[in-house]
């Protein structure tokens, strides 16, 4: 995946002018859809993502329901026009994997025992993509769940760190993701600071990993603050 000869730093700054530990601009808004029980719209750098939550509701097909708790289902989907090369509609292998790890990242904070035999359905639509859509999607999904009033013991906040030209950096954008050396997306429950999503690919020494891990953790906590503001804003009016 790596290519040589692509410069990722200009005058000591990243291509978009950021410092190594600086997040891209992030905007969040909850309650953007009428039909969904909860929803959120999120812009994170050049990513534009909408998430919806339905539930707790009856499970179809019925055989998936669990007698003693709610199940959580997640569908991560990219619009065909969300990437430079048109994506064929429908989930590919990457989408299936992201849906799976996103579900696993979100379900630990849901008080599933309160609503046995039901499902909490979470839908994430990527309308414009530019690296980091899984972290952005998880972040938006957690907001949509909170907006839907799903009882949760904590929020989930997500952010990645990586390595570009040998330097550990937070929240990589497109070119950094394409030509970088490593990527470490993380999601945490921000109050307990527990890790609910962790994936990694590329190349880290043990020391670099720890540095990137801490940077991603810090990023998650920054994201958490923005999430809280978005939720507060809803109740301000």
């Amino acid at each position, binding site marked *: 995946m790596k290519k040589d000869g692509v410069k990722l730093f200009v005058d000591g700054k990243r291509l978009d002018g950021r410092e190594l530990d600086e997040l891209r601009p992030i905007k969040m808004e909850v309650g953007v*859809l*009428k*039909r*969904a029980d909860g929803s959120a719209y999120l812009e994170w750098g*050049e990513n*534009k993502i*909408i*998430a*919806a939550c*339905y539930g707790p*509701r009856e499970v179809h097909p019925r055989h998936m329901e669990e007698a003693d708790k709610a199940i959580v289902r997640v*569908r991560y*989907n990219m*619009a*065909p*026009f*969300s*990437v*430079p*090369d*048109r994506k064929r*509609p*429908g*989930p590919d292998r990457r989408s299936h994997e992201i849906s799976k790890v996103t579900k696993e990242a979100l379900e630990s904070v849901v008080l599933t025992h309160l609503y046995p035999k039901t499902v909490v*359905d979470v*839908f994430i*639509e990527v*309308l*414009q*993509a*530019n690296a980091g859509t899984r972290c952005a999607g998880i972040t938006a999904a957690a907001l949509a769940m909170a907006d839907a009033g799903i009882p949760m013991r904590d929020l989930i906040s997500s952010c990645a760190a990586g390595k570009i030209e040998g330097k550990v950096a937070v929240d990589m954008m497109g070119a950094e993701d394409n030509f970088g050396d490593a990527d470490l997306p993380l999601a945490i429950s921000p109050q307990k600071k527990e890790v609910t999503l962790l994936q990694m690919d590329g190349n880290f020494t043990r020391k670099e990993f720890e540095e990137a891990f801490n940077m991603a953790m810090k990023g998650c906590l920054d994201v958490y603050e923005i999430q809280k503001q978005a939720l507060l804003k809803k109740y301000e009016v």
Partner: protein
Amino acid sequence: MLGVIADIKKDYIKKLLEEGKRLDGRGLDDYRPIEIKKDLYATAEGSALVSLGSTQVAVGVKMILGEPYSDMPNRGVLTTSAELGPLASPTFESGPPRPPAIELARVVDRGIRESGSIDTEKLCIVEGEQVWIVFLDIHVLDYDGNLFDASTLACISALLDAKMPKVEDGKAIYGERSGSLPIVDTPISTTYAKLGSAIAVDPHLEEEQVLDARLTITTTKKGEICAMQKGEGGAFTAEEVLNTIDRGIEKAKELRKLL
């Protein structure tokens, strides 16, 4: 909704409509508030997000180079798809497009195609070998009724917004743009719901759930008819069809001003 409650609701909406009134206070010829946002998604060649009341439809235009059809060697190709994903409604399901999504895409596509909206000859790079394939992807975000009109508005807006990629050595350069798409007509679709003896434009969700039949009329700039589609299990009299067309032709002129 099942049984008795659905029947009561249907009777109530029908009585209202027959008195010329609607649940949300509109008249029979009023659209809900319409908002059109363009140039939203930078990864698309063109894009638009249309709100029709609470209904929200996002459309992206993608263009790729490909081969023309052998019977139209000097024309670009238009391909329209619609996704009614589970995000937009509790009744939509994941999976390949079902008949309602296919019908939506095909009716919108016919309006654009048959109006001659896109001058497809200008999308030919090398006759018989290379032309632009234009993908129109309709992505429904919030379904509160009348997807036909919202989608046609969003598609034509996205087409008007689209910038063509440059072509160098037979390859598309997506980073650079060589002008707008050749859009020569702006078809507008108007959809009417019939319930009992009343016929109302722009049905919202609660009306769609109880209507007897639906009629969509798409008209060109000149006021000619380029596509129609009757839907659902009910029926129209001949007189109703002709009256509704007259109403649709007039209403389209108003809507076209929003583009």
